[in-house]
């Protein structure tokens, strides 16, 4: 087993940022991570909180978004600058480093294109992977997607054109051409936060509608919803399309933040973190998902800085404690505060206003 350093929200990445504590750096780093994870948590919440579908393989769609964006960006750069080398080769990384800041619009264009393509492709994959399992009962969906994610990771580890276990490196940052790294990452953090806010607004509007009402009905009793003429399998697959597409966007954002991908960033534990966020924050509430993401990413990032000074590492790997806590957190919240920090609220549609008016008048 590969023992990752703590800060496992970011597995597979070295701890280069542990050199010294820098408040602004920490804030930028944390808010980027928070926003990416909040996007993932909102997408999972749409599936589990509103529709009652247990997606234990969220990470697979996150991975597809990241890999797709990496391949798209690297291939385009290599083609434009006439470098013929495998995507993962040292030559390619050197060329990317050399030309990465030359054409600002290329960087930005690829960033936008990656996000759009990631959303579409992961959405379609999500739809196709889950459609067969949708009628077989809740347990199957979870296990099938979990296995799918592991198969995908396994495939990536063994597929040389995508760099096998080493993955792909040197993807130019969308703002590579901004010389000051703090400004660069700062702008990026703001953009990711903005996208998070957009995703939040979209999710809120989607669920506070007759469509959202059907989703709640499916969560309560899918058989009864089917008997009321709702095409339950198609609706569930649609939700998985949306949820996966959003996760794909998060994957693209993650890639451009780090500039590299490798298969072991996408271990099932990433999914479990997202689950912990949604359960802690409150299933069936988008604000809760964001709150959960904020808390867990903050604790995780903070631990990255704090733990080495505690002197515990000689006895017990901090990673184990972190994960035992995540597991326990899921169980304890479900047992003692099933609604999470911000419990589910009734959906808001005009029907409610009509009822209110009638009650008053």
């Amino acid at each position, binding site marked *: 087993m590969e023992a990752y350093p703590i800060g496992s929200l970011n597995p597979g990445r070295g701890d280069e940022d542990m050199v010294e504590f820098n408040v602004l750096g920490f804030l930028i780093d944390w808010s980027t991570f928070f926003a990416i994870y909040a996007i993932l948590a909102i997408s999972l919440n749409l599936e589990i909180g509103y529709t009652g579908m247990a997606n234990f393989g969220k990470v697979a769609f996150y991975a597809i978004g990241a890999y797709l964006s990496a391949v798209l960006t690297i291939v385009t750069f290599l083609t434009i600058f006439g470098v013929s080398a495998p995507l993962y080769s040292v030559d390619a990384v050197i060329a990317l480093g050399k030309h990465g800041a030359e054409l600002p619009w290329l960087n930005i264009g690829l960033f936008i294109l990656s996000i759009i393509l990631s959303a579409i492709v992961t959405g379609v994959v999500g739809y196709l992977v889950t459609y067969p399992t949708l009628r077989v009962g809740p347990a199957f969906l979870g296990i099938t997607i979990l296995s799918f994610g592991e198969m995908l990771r396994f495939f990536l580890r063994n597929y040389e054109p995508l760099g096998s276990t080493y993955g792909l490196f040197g993807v130019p940052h969308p703002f590579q051409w901004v010389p000051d790294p703090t400004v660069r990452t700062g702008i990026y953090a703001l953009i990711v936060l903005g996208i998070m806010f957009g995703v939040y607004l*979209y999710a809120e509007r989607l669920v506070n509608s007759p*469509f959202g*009402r059907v989703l709640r*009905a499916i969560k309560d009793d899918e058989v009864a919803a089917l008997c009321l003429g709702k095409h339950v399998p198609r609706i569930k697959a649609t939700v998985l399309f949306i949820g996966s597409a959003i996760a794909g966007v998060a994957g693209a954002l993650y890639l451009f933040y780090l500039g590299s991908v490798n298969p072991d960033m996408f271990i099932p534990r990433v999914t479990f973190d997202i689950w912990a966020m949604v359960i802690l924050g409150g299933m069936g509430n988008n604000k809760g998902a964001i709150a959960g993401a904020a808390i867990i990413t903050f604790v995780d990032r903070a631990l990255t800085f704090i733990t080495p000074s505690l002197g515990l590492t000689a006895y017990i790997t901090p990673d184990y404690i972190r994960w035992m806590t995540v597991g326990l957190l899921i169980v304890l919240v479900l047992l003692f505060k099933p609604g999470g920090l911000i419990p*589910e609220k009734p959906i808001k549609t005009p*029907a409610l206003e009509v009822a209110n008016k009638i009650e008053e008048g």
Partner: protein
Amino acid sequence: MPELLETVDVAKYFGGVRALDGVSIKVKEGSVIGLIGPNGSGKTTLFNVITGFYVPERGEVWFNNEQIDGLNPNEVYLKGLVRTFQIPRLFPSLTVLENVIITPPYQIGERVLDAPFKKRWEKQEIDLAKKAVELLRRFGMGKYIKSKISELSAAHIKMLETIRGLLASPKILLLDEPAAGVAYTTAKELFEYILRLRSEQGLTFLIIEHRLEVLMDYVDYVYVLHNGRLLSEGKPEEVVQDPKVIEAYLGG
């Protein structure tokens, strides 16, 4: 009058058990038909075959001159057949109003691409809400519009399940033991409503009941199931006299 719903020689087996073994019933438009029989006689299985839960091993189901066996439950619903369950299946995380307003099919706001744009579906939603409120008031549930399902009494839950499908303007209601667990007087009230709906809106009913005596005064025609076969059929007063029926109830 034409037959609205008809099953022809329907059979359904579970492993070696013959839950239904060649059942043919006819339901005329505008009639109230009873389906009775002891526990395990195949009443609910027949409902499940009609509403698309199961595909029959043998036989056909016709509705409105269309063969509907093999259709999925959602497709059957869209044809105009609304069913209820023995144990009511309402949606506990929705309010009473929402449990009603969800029943009409093809709502604009239920389409995923239109849902985020309130303008596109707001008007339809308000119209439906008004109709739903009216419906609830008509059945004496005006007070509970905003209640959660968990706050309702058992009788109101039964009632809500029975009436909520009316908003979707169905052709036939299939009711699975609407009076089970409901006080005798409430059951009477419910059946009075059913008769009223029949005369007001020309609705058709197929009603499963375990207890014969509850149904007697309200149905036009009764089918008696026993061990997956039709034991007897006829006007209620004839069926009660049938020695086979008496034996099935007392001996079974």
